[in-house]
């Protein structure tokens, strides 16, 4: 029962597991059978320029160009750093590690590794194809039939010639060079190659200096010197320099332009020129490797030495050393150009410029508008001043009888008293006590006349500028009442003021407001002249609403004839026999100039002139 119920699922699971194992084995077998094993043998180490660049590009290109999977192993011929490196040990090491594994290709990177393999070819996998890469043709060994080679051609003399064309004033060349065996070997070649140029420029070599000493020298090189950064693997002090760090340090302190033959240093401080294009050389090297891996005989693949590429220059270095672009050889390519602000931020600059132009336009319009407003304000001020002048004249006219009365009274008293004193002085003996009283009275009357003149001076002052200020309108009413009450009393009018208990701040010229009030009050007094019955004049101030105050001047006169109610504010319209017809229109104009309004109405016992003014904001 149990076997019947569990049988089919059990058999199915077993079948799936077995099928999976078979499939996995098949796949693994396929992978192993197709994978190509390549051994990269570095000279000196993995991270020494320019070979590190070669190795990196070759790895990438191999994987890119090969149809088969590439399994890369890498070893470094560290012994190449030292003149007495024990190569036997390295041979043993390679055999120990790789004899049991089938290698499809050995690639050496750089001259030392190539030389090592050729010298020990019989002892290291003699049957395995070997490709010598990243080496200069002059120092490369001849390849046997089983081996292939992709070399580069470095034109040392051409490089210096280029430099002399680019920087014609050059008199000295300082060559940065290391002291490892391969560098020494290369230095011998360079010295020999550059010998013909010795008559044109003085050439010095740094191979006997440590990097620290080199740094000191390049900082204080004589004028018209250029630096050629040849190679710096190991300096004279035996210090190993990986990557491009040595160049970077030299570049940081050098007082002369630096040139190099390998484009691995391009962009890291050298000016540029015709340089070996490591990317291209690596691509060609990988192509040869793929052909060998595909079954071609290495000895049958012949590639000519690859020359330096078209000249390339670092724009930043050209600028730094003031080398004009017109001096560069034809076909030169300039890289690392720092774009101008315009090139880099074309859109932003355009937008900002547009915004600035727009703003400038708006500002211009605003300025024009402001100018117009100023002109309009000047005109308005001019008109207001004219109105104010007329108002002053009108006020003076209204007050003329009052002025005469108020001044002539004390003057009359002074004159009478003075003449009386003169008479008293003729007596023998004069009445000194009475003379004293007379003089006191004269002083008092003089003071009174002076007070009257002071009060009127403010009111009738011929000012050209408005004195705009915020003040309590109730104070204005009090001042006006003080000025006009003698005249009002003299004319038998009862003046009553009902002032708002709270302050009524308004913003205008207080004299203008006093003149308006004076005008309205004297208007009311005049209206009651010759009218029977009690003569009452009331000035009432109050808050009209949240934004304004209201002043009402009411009299108990005959009121304004209905046909003149509408025109009473027109110029030269008057209900008085001796009126100018200017007082009310002027008062209205002044109030309107401060944002107020003035109107007239009749009430059962006389006329009411009311005006509103905006409440001054705190």
């Amino acid at each position, binding site marked *: 029962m149990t076997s019947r119920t569990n049988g089919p699922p059990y058999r199915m699971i077993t079948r799936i597991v077995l099928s999976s194992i078979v499939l996995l084995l098949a796949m693994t077998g396929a992978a192993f059978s197709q994978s190509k094993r390549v051994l990269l043998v570095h000279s000196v180490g993995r991270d020494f320029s320019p070979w590190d660049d070669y190795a990196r590009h070759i790895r990438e290109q191999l994987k890119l160009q090969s149809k088969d999977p590439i399994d890369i192993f890498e070893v470094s011929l560290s012994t190449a750093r030292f003149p007495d490196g024990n190569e036997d040990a390295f041979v043993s090491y390679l055999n120990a590690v790789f004899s049991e594994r089938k290698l499809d290709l050995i690639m050496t990177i750089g001259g030392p590794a190539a030389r090592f393999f050729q010298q020990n070819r019989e002892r290291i996998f003699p049957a395995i194809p070997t490709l010598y890469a990243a080496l200069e043709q002059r120092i490369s060994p001849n390849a046997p039939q089983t081996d292939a080679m992709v070399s580069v051609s470095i034109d040392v003399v051409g490089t210096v010639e280029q430099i002399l064309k680019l920087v014609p004033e050059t008199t000295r060349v300082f060559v940065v060079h290391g002291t490892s065996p391969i560098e020494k070997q290369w230095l011998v070649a360079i010295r020999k190659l550059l010998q013909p140029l010795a008559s044109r420029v003085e050439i010095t070599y740094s191979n006997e200096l440590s990097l620290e000493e080199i740094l000191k020298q390049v900082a204080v090189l004589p004028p018209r010197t250029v630096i050629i950064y040849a190679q710096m693997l190991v300096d004279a002090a035996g210090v190993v320099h990986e990557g491009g760090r040595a160049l970077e340090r030299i570049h940081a302190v050098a007082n002369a332009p630096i040139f190099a033959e390998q484009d691995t240093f391009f962009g890291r401080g050298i000016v540029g020129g015709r340089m070996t294009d490591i990317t291209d050389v690596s691509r060609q090297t990988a192509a040869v490797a793929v052909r060998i891996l595909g079954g071609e005989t290495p000895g049958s693949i012949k590639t000519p030495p690859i020359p330096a590429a078209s000249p390339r220059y670092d724009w930043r270095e050209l600028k730094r050393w003031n080398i004009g672009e017109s001096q560069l050889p034809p076909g030169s390519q300039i890289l690392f150009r720092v774009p101008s602000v315009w090139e880099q931020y074309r859109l932003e600059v355009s937008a900002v410029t547009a915004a600035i132009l727009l703003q400038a336009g708006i500002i211009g319009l605003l300025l024009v508008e402001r100018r117009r407003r100023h002109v309009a304000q000047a005109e308005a001020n001019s008109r207001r001043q004219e109105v104010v002048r007329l108002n002053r004249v009108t006020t003076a006219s209204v007050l003329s*009888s009052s002025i*005469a*009365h*108020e*001044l*002539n*009274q*004390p*003057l*009359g*008293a*002074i*004159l*009478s*008293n003075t*003449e*009386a*004193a003169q*008479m*008293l002085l003729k007596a023998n003996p004069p009445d000194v006590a*009475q003379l004293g009283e*007379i003089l006191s*009275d004269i002083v*008092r*009357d003089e003071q*009174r006349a002076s007070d009257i003149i002071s009060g009127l001076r403010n009111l009738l002052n011929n000012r050209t500028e408005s004195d705009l200020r915020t003040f309590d309108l109730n104070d204005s009413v009090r001042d006006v009442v003080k000025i006009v009450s003698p005249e009002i*009393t*003299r004319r*038998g009018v009862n003046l009553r003021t009902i002032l708002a208990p709270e302050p009524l701040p308004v913003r205008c010229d207080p004299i203008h407001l006093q003149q308006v009030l004076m005008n309205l009050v004297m208007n009311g007094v005049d209206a009651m002249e010759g009218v029977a019955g009690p003569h009452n004049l009331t000035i009432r101030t109050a808050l009209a609403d949240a934004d304004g105050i209201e002043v009402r001047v009411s009299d108990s006169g005959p009121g304004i004839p209905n046909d003149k109610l509408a025109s009473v504010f027109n110029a030269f319209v008057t209900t008085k026999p001796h009126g100018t017809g200017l007082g009310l229109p002027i008062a209205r104009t002044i109030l309107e100039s401060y944002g107020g309004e003035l109107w007239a109405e009749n009430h059962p016992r006389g006329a009411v002139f009311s005006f509103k003014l905006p409440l001054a904001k705190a």
Partner: protein
Amino acid sequence: MRTIAVVDDNPSMLQGLNRLLSAHGFIVRTFASAESFLEANAECEADCLLLDVHLGGISGIDLQRQLIASGRELPVIIMTAIDNEVTRQEAFDAGCVAYLKKPFLSKLLIDAIGRIP
């Protein structure tokens, strides 16, 4: 000795005229208003009335008219601090013997009084 009544609502003026006329040897009676003058019946004993036009209550011109209306023949010298054609005309119409504008020299006043018969 002549008696001069003076009516002026300005105390200082009133006092000054009192002193001046007294110094010239006149008997002077002063009144601050037309009403007080009438109340005192001063017109009966005065030989001349020196009268201001603008008074608090009854004006000088009105008082002058009232005196004429009541048949009194009191010579009136009008004085005013506000000189204008209307006032001048009204004063002479009401029969004043002289019209003086304040401030005036005492000579004008004494001469005017002297011309009164």
